[in-house]
């Protein structure tokens, strides 16, 4: 295990940012810390980097107790949401910074910086100042700068949060490919579940200072531990007292027999979003959302007012969660 976090707590005044958090982050993999804003995920990342100190608990990096080490002694690479580019230094000098601090020989610095600039496709921008780069380029520069010192772990705090949607998508695919090349243990913070599901090998879901679930994207999506994880990772709808993904609900035209697993109702609304059709079925004082592909929808010839019956697809029972009554009352 590369990063061991044991019983870490952190308060800011009265606000509990982290409440007795323990987690092991595996070596050589890409791990996402996923959760809503203010849930404590950035604080955890900053504690790993040493930019914030924990009130209690232990942090171990590659077997070394780092709890009381200052950031410059932890050998971590950190990438900030707003790039934190050294504005008075050229791209080249930015990337070389960590190596110059370590007083590496000039020739080594030159070859390493050139190699990294090639890796992040910024060779032709070496002499520019950060202010002459786009947001995506600045973030790639920041990544090269962090990788230059060959960190034990690479930590990214909402790395794509300040970029527009298209660049965001490009960069996260690029990050995934980069990680497949470089294999450095990487932890990144995000509040975007799609980003986490697409990029990460493993996801740690954090909410209100606690860890809700740890697992691979498939495990989290298919077998959420509770209804927070279920709701946070994708769309949900409620059928009876179960939460289920709208694409895991089966729909059939016509009234059924007295089957307890089925609910009979009428189609009350049909919305098309690109290839996906969302059908709302109202029955038993409950509105159930079902998503269908365009072809399924056309084959069934559904109209508003059609009588249908819905049930949870039998093969996906593991992917449903009993509704938390307390939360239901709260909402």
């Amino acid at each position, binding site marked *: 295990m590369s990063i061991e976090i044991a019983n870490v707590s952190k308060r800011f005044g009265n606000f509990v940012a982290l409440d007795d958090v323990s987690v092991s982050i595996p070596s050589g993999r890409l791990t996402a810390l996923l959760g809503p804003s203010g849930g404590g995920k950035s604080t955890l990342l900053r504690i790993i980097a*040493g930019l914030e100190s924990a009130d209690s608990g232990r942090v171990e990096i590659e077997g070394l107790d780092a709890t009381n080490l200052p950031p410059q002694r932890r050998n971590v690479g950190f990438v900030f949401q707003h790039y934190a580019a050294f504005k008075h230094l050229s791209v080249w000098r930015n990337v070389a910074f960590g190596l110059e601090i370590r007083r590496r020989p000039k020739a080594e610095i030159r070859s390493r910086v050139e190699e990294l600039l090639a890796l992040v496709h910024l060779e032709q921008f070496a002499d520019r100042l950060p202010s002459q780069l786009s947001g995506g380029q600045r973030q790639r520069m920041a990544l090269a700068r962090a990788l230059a010192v060959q960190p034990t772990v690479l930590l990214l705090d909402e790395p794509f949060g300040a970029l527009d949607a298209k660049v965001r998508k490009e960069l996260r695919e690029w990050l995934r490919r980069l990680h497949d090349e470089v294999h450095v243990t990487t932890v990144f913070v995000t509040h975007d579940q799609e980003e986490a599901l697409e990029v990460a090998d493993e996801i740690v879901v954090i909410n209100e200072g606690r860890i809700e679930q740890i697992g691979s994207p498939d495990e989290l999506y298919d077998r959420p531990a509770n209804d927070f994880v279920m709701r946070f990772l994708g769309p949900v709808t409620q059928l009876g007292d179960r939460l289920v993904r709208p694409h895991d609900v089966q729909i059939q035209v016509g009234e059924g027999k007295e089957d307890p697993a089925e609910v009979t109702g009428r189609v009350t609304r049909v919305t098309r979003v690109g290839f996906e059709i969302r059908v709302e079925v109202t029955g038993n004082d409950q509105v159930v959302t079902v998503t269908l592909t365009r072809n399924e929808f056309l084959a069934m010839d559904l109209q508003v007012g059609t009588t249908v019956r819905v049930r949870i697809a039998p093969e996906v029972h593991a992917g449903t969660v009993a509704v938390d009554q307390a939360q239901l009352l709260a909402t």
Partner: protein
Amino acid sequence: MADRRTGTAVHNRPGPARHVLRLVVTVYLVLLVAWPVALVGRNAFGNGLTDLEGILNDPDVVHALRLTVTVAVTAVLINTVFGVGISLLLVRYDFPGKRLLNALLDVPLSVSPIVVGLALVLVYGGRSGWFGPTLESAGFQVIFATPGIVLATVFVALPLVIREVVPVLQEVGDEQEQAARSLGAGAVQTFLRITLPTIKWGVVYGVVLSLARSLGEFGAVKVVSGNVLGQTRTATLVVEEKYLNFDKGGAYATALLLTLVAVAAIIVVSVLRPKEPR
């Protein structure tokens, strides 16, 4: 940047209000600043170069000018080091009493310099001061000597570097410093390689303002210096002395020299300043 440019473009459309405003501002500045200062220059050359030559050949005036430069440079050095330090303390750290310290830093700007002088005499005065006799018995005279003049000058110019540097530090934030730390830089390396280059222009403006203020300080210096001819008389005191003794030509010539140094500093900075704001 882009916003500012659009903003100016809108205001550049000629209109009567703009012309009136421009006229008012110009007249105001000419009557208040430009004309009086220009008259000092004109009077300095009222007898040709005689007055200027006169003061430059007067060993007491030359001594006063030297003393003023020594005091100003020393005071600026002290204020720069402490100013940058206090700015970092104020912006980057939280501690009890921070607001009080912040308010205290404005005292030198709001209190009359002559009060500053009296206060310093009360503390460091050689005979009856609170701390002065102790220092004096150790062979260190503060009041009526150069250290007192430096002290008074440091006091009145104290907030100028801080008030320039603090907003810059606040604006740039501490992310670059954190990035430097995570890349292995220690506190000193981070300060020298990242913080100092970032706040460079704030420090330069602060230094120029402090220098101008230090060269021109009069009230506090008059009280603490004792105004001893050829020893503790500074350039501003020479101006007063000559003026009161009906040597107006000499007074204007000395005043012109003081003005030229301050104007030169401001011009040098505006030439060196990068065209693009950060």
